[in-house]
């Protein structure tokens, strides 16, 4: 009997599809209630995910950037590789409480570099551009006939931005009844709170839409798999 050329591929697809189908049903069974099938699917998912990540990290980080340069790189590459190797081994000592202290320098290096990168990015990528944009919101040169609409939008955006920032200001003065913010700050923060509530409402709607899409995609998969059977 001659099997189709793509029979093996089809078999593999069938098997993998079947597994995916089964796992999808096991997870969706949570709608009925918590059950062992759901737990089995979750634990398998965690294991597979951790193993997959470990394999990817090994191949694309440790092997490619550490092992290979250490054994087959130039002298300069080797010397430069020794430092992260040593720091990485020190980082491994973090697993044990007794030796975790020795991994502090490696963690300190990671924190220091990460802090510098974050500071530079926050200043250059968010702080300056967004502040500039807030000021440019009232620029009406390119508005044309829609200057009023543009102006109102700009005022509202500026007010919303400022009041939102004021809401996150937690400085207070000591008073007889306890630390309190000034009345102006309290009023403005109240306005900022309204803007924040609107923003969170919009975020909630976006998450809901994304979840709806995922639900549709999953049921589409189920129907498609069943139809191919």
């Amino acid at each position, binding site marked *: 009997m001659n099997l189709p050329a793509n029979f093996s591929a089809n078999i593999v697809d069938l098997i993998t599809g079947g597994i995916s189908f089964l796992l999808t049903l096991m997870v969706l069974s949570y709608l009925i209630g918590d059950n062992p099938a759901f737990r089995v699917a979750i634990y398998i998912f965690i294991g597979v995910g951790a193993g997959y990540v470990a394999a990817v990290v090994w191949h694309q980080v440790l092997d490619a950037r550490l092992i290979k340069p250490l054994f087959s790189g130039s002298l300069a590459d080797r010397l430069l590789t020794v430092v992260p190797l040593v720091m990485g081994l020190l980082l*491994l000592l973090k697993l044990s409480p007794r030796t975790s202290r020795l991994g502090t320098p490696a963690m300190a290096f990671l924190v220091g570099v990460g802090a510098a990168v974050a500071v530079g990015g926050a200043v250059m990528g968010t702080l300056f551009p967004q502040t500039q944009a807030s000021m440019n919101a009232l620029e009406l040169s390119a508005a044309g006939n829609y200057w009023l609409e543009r102006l109102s939008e700009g005022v509202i955006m500026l007010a919303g931005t400022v009041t939102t920032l004021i809401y996150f200001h937690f400085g207070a003065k000591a008073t007889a009844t306890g630390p309190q913010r000034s009345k102006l700050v309290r009023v403005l923060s109240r306005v900022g709170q309204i803007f924040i509530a609107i923003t969170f409402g919009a975020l909630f709607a976006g998450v809901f839409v994304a979840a709806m899409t995922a639900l549709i995609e999953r049921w589409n998969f189920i129907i498609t798999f069943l139809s191919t059977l």
Partner: protein
Amino acid sequence: MNRTRFLSTLIGIFSTAIAIASGALVLAGYFFAEQADGQASLLTNIRLTLLQWAIILAGFAIFIGIFSLFLVHFKKIQKKEKGSVYSILLIISLLATFLFGLVKPGQVGKVFTTVQLPVEASLMALLTVTLTYASIRLLRRRLDLFSVIFLLTAVLILLGTAPLPFLGNVPGLSTWARPFISHVLAGAGARGILLGMALGTLTTGLRILFGADRPYGGNK
């Protein structure tokens, strides 16, 4: 006892010095990236080296996290705690996937798409029911101005995003209300949040670079 304390103090000081030095070098590279002739400056090269080391160490950190997960469930199996059967499944799937990925790095993606993707997508799909249920019960649990504004905004956005069956988009809602709410009102709040986050990142980062904060465990 004194030796241990001395060693701890020494490690703390050494760690703080490393954090400050590495952070200062990376930050300096922002401002002194190029030489006058347009070539990369020494600071840029140092910066790149430090960033590369950080990438390698990040890989180590992920590996340590996965190994820690393994240890936790392994101990759970050793102690025969409740739910250790599931831990056995976890360890078996972890080891199997890792070994398969080591041997066949090009095929491990299939395992991913077969197991991980459908489960994650299904979990996200469950969120639809949960979010609907939560929004129904919201006003019963907490009834105030902000809850009403929150729910009203969500409904309006939803109405403006998805057209109605057989009717299509709601006039005015999809064309004006929804863009105004999302772009202007929500955008203003989001910009304020982003600015606040940037200021907080700047403050925290500078405190770490000055040695005032030592989240890595350096001595105070």
